[in-house]
């Protein structure tokens, strides 16, 4: 399993998409936070969704998934290794962006407690996008599906929480 994870990490590391997404997220998230926290959250989520979708999506698109399965016929093990890499990358990238965001905008307050929750949220979003990509086997459609689903869920949660009279800014998934 360690070998599979090492292979998957090398695979992601040698893709330009990783560095483009990570760079974009690290620059744009704090920049967006100076305007609005909702916008910052949307940017970070979008980048994480793209990253998580690219991991399996690029292999389906180029047919290299067949090479992968030839080297490792245990397909479930391959997918677990990929999911692990996605999890770690999403957590690290999410954590990095959030810390930068907090540095830009100290209004976010009790940083440490929130950070853990928000990183967990980033990972959930990433794994969701990953699973959607496995289902549709196509990067772009997976990204749009996952992104709209995540934004919709967010909207629904906000509406629901307001219906119950809660202040949306204190909601759990509020990045």
């Amino acid at each position, binding site marked *: 399993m360690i*070998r*599979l994870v*090492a*292979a998957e990490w*090398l*695979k992601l590391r*040698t*893709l*330009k998409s990783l560095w483009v997404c990570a760079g974009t997220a690290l620059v744009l998230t704090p920049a967006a936070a100076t305007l609005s926290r909702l916008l910052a959250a949307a940017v970070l989520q979008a980048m994480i969704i793209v990253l998580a979708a690219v991991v399996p999506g*690029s*292999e389906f698109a*180029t*047919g*290299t*998934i*067949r*090479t992968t*399965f*030839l*080297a*490792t*016929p*245990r397909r479930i093990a391959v997918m677990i290794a990929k999911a692990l890499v996605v999890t770690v990358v999403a957590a690290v990238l999410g954590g990095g962006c959030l810390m930068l965001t907090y540095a830009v905008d100290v209004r976010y307050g009790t940083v440490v407690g929130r950070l853990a929750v928000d990183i967990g949220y980033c990972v959930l979003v990433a794994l969701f996008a990953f699973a959607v990509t496995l289902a549709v086997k196509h990067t772009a459609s997976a990204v749009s599906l996952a992104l709209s689903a995540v934004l919709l869920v967010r909207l629904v949660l906000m509406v629901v929480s307001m219906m119950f009279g809660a202040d949306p800014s204190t909601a759990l998934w509020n990045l």
Partner: protein
Amino acid sequence: MAGRLAVRNVGLVIEVHDLTRRYGGVSAVRNVSFRLEPGVLHGIVGPAGAGKSTTLRLMVGLDRATSGWCLFDGRSYRDLAYPLREVGVLLAPTPAHPGRTGRDHLRILARTHGIPDRRADEVLEMTGLADVARLRAGAYSPGLRQRLGLAGALLGDPPALLLDDPAAGLDPDGVAWLRVLLRTLAREGRAVLVTGRLTGELASDVDRLVILGRGRVLADAPTAEVISRNTVPAVRVRPDRPDDLEKLLRGHGAAVALRPDGRLEITGLTSADIAGLAVRAGILLIENTPVHASLDDVYLALARGR
């Protein structure tokens, strides 16, 4: 590394038994059985759509067989713990991510098996890719891409190789190089299988032929035997007096056909017989050539026989 692995694994036998794949109501491959022996260069040949690639994909579990199985020393591909060390596979066309360098493509495969990067550089050298190893695969020509696929198949130094249309995309130099490589691999004791068209570059090189037609095995025997058993040897001659020679040979029980280029095609007599008869009759033979039957002819004969 090369020597050690080859010695340890040498003698892998691959058995395909009654492999069948149906898509809907159509059989792509029907009851295909054959056996691959160590040290032998095998070829699966047939026209387009005969089921060559499908057979290969079924063997390695990239496609699920409707029935039948393929075993590698008694184990199915999915049960191989380190498949790259046991069976090298070349897919057609060779998949590679266009944004990744050829070297990284191989390093990723190597990681899954704990194979050192040094081995990736070795196979890049073997396949003539050392100079382009650090270029993105998207910039490779079809020939280079094919070599990258071969490098991947050789990465684990496997005792068996399954190569789907390995000559595809290679230029004449590349095909000549591939011929030598395949022969060397077989001589090292590996079981090698290539697929190809009937008129393909490699079809006449292989030791043993499996001829596929419409998903069925039409013949499975040593190459020379397949050809001699299914075609009648013919001789083409160009005499100075065609009419006289035709009469003469017919008189000796040969079948003679006049070809559009003015040559006579004769079956039923050897070229030595014909030369002897012509000399005695004072007929000059400007050409006298035994014709080697092509695999196309063999295929047509087999397909008619069905």
